[in-house]
């Protein structure tokens, strides 16, 4: 009887300890987001917004509601230079692996900001590329992997809908130039090679104007 009670007691202690740790991790992330980590990582909200909504004018992407595994991988990839950005490479490198993980989880749980803009139709050039592709160049419609209206699919196909046009353009060009090469199966490096400057501009503008919330549109 005593041993059973002791086991239960130890179990309780372990559960409480775990809860405290989880709490500590969440507040770690919260504190890094608002104040930085004091070891070289600036506060995330300075560029990604108070609610992780991003800053369209500066091309800083939305992080709120993105897949945690995707965000964690991007932070790791900044540390190994398979994805480049002067600010993010130094920031990610100043974070510990635990901090990167905590931040990825933190942002994945923030609500996706709603959009008040009216999205353009599929008929314009950007919409056509986004929804139907350019098959003569082996380019499927972007939404065939990035989900209905580009709202994202799982850990490998991030949302494009509602991301700043400047950001989407910069990423497509980074793949073209090889400065970003952290894509599975080199899908984006190959796709982007066939895109013209105009294609990139059109498709980035189209996705930037889409609502970030999945609505079950045609994939």
């Amino acid at each position, binding site marked *: 009887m005593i041993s059973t009670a002791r086991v239960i007691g130890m179990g309780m202690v372990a559960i409480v300890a775990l809860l405290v740790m989880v709490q500590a991790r969440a507040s770690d992330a919260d504190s890094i987001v608002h104040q930085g980590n004091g070891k070289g990582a600036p506060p995330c909200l300075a560029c990604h917004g108070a609610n992780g909504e991003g800053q369209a004018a500066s091309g800083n992407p939305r992080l709120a509601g993105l897949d945690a595994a995707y965000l964690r991988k991007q932070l790791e990839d900044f540390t190994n230079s398979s994805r480049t950005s002067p600010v993010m490479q130094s920031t990610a490198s100043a974070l510990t692996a635990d901090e990167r993980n905590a931040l990825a989880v933190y942002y994945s749980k923030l609500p996706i900001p709603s959009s008040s803009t009216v999205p353009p139709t599929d008929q314009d050039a950007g919409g056509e590329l986004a929804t*139907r*592709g350019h*098959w003569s160049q*082996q*380019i*499927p419609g972007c939404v*065939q*992997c990035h*989900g*209905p209206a580009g*709202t*994202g*699919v*799982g850990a*490998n*196909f991030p949302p494009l809908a509602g991301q700043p046009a400047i950001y989407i353009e910069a990423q497509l060009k980074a793949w073209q130039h090889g400065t970003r090469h952290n894509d*599975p*199966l*080199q*899908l984006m490096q*190959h*796709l982007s090679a066939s895109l013209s400057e105009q294609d990139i501009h059109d498709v980035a503008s189209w996705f930037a104007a889409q609502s970030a919330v*999945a*609505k*079950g549109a*045609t*994939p």
Partner: protein
Amino acid sequence: MNRRIAVAALIIAICGLNGCANKSPAAPMASVVPAASIAKTDAAPAFAPPSEKKIPDGPLGDVIRRGRDIFIDTPARAKAYVGNGLSCSNCHLDAGRLAKSAPLWGAYGMYPQYRKKTGEVNTFGERLQGCFLYSMNGKAPALDSAELVALETYAWWMSQGAPVGVKLAGAGYPKLADPALKIDYSRGQTVYEKNCALCHGSDGQGQQVAGRNVFPPLWGPQSFNWGAGMHQVGNAAGFIKANMPLSRGGTLNDRDAWDVAMFMDAHERPQDPRFTGNVADTRHKFHDTPDSLYGVSINGHLLGEPTAQKSAYR
């Protein structure tokens, strides 16, 4: 009775997985054509479908557009006839326009046609009914239903200017050369995990957003059934080689394409609607070819066997 099935399955299994698999699925078809006529025939003519922007305005254009819309979003627009979440455009890429992906313009002018599968001459509309029955694991729309008329009108529009009764370059799926080495399930699994699981999932069930397929399931209850053309390893290998991974078509070698096609088609899927009540009998009647793994035992699982299907879905 059980023993008989087991023996038959064993024979089939040995046949399916060993020597017989080396026979090209295309071989019987090709041998029907006399050698002399092949020599005389020029290369298959090329064809490019008209731009979608050329779909006319007015009532005819409306039906063409409706057919196009059904084609790319079949579960939403032909709901009553689709038993899984697949769309026509999952296997016929670019809304049925893409060469080497069984384009509509490559099929339209080849009907009516005698089909071994049905044992009779089928019209194009009847061929489309087969897609719903097998690939969509659903029900065949009536020939005069709005859905079938729209799909047929879309195919007709896309085929304008194409010759009738002439096999065009890029029609159907490419026929790969016979596998030089024995088709290998576990090698196929390795190819799958490296190249396919990213989108279709390691469990083959695809990925869904808001209840809709983004990446289609390749096997299991929401995939095409045992009567669909894609369950034939040769068809699947040709499609995969030409088109997968999406945007990287042509990057797998033939051996990888054969092995991964076999891996995909060696998984359980919905029953053939022509099921006679007996797997060996159904195989004998409809799948008597090394190109089909129906009724074959893989890793101790008799494919198509109803109780085994249930346990595989769990």
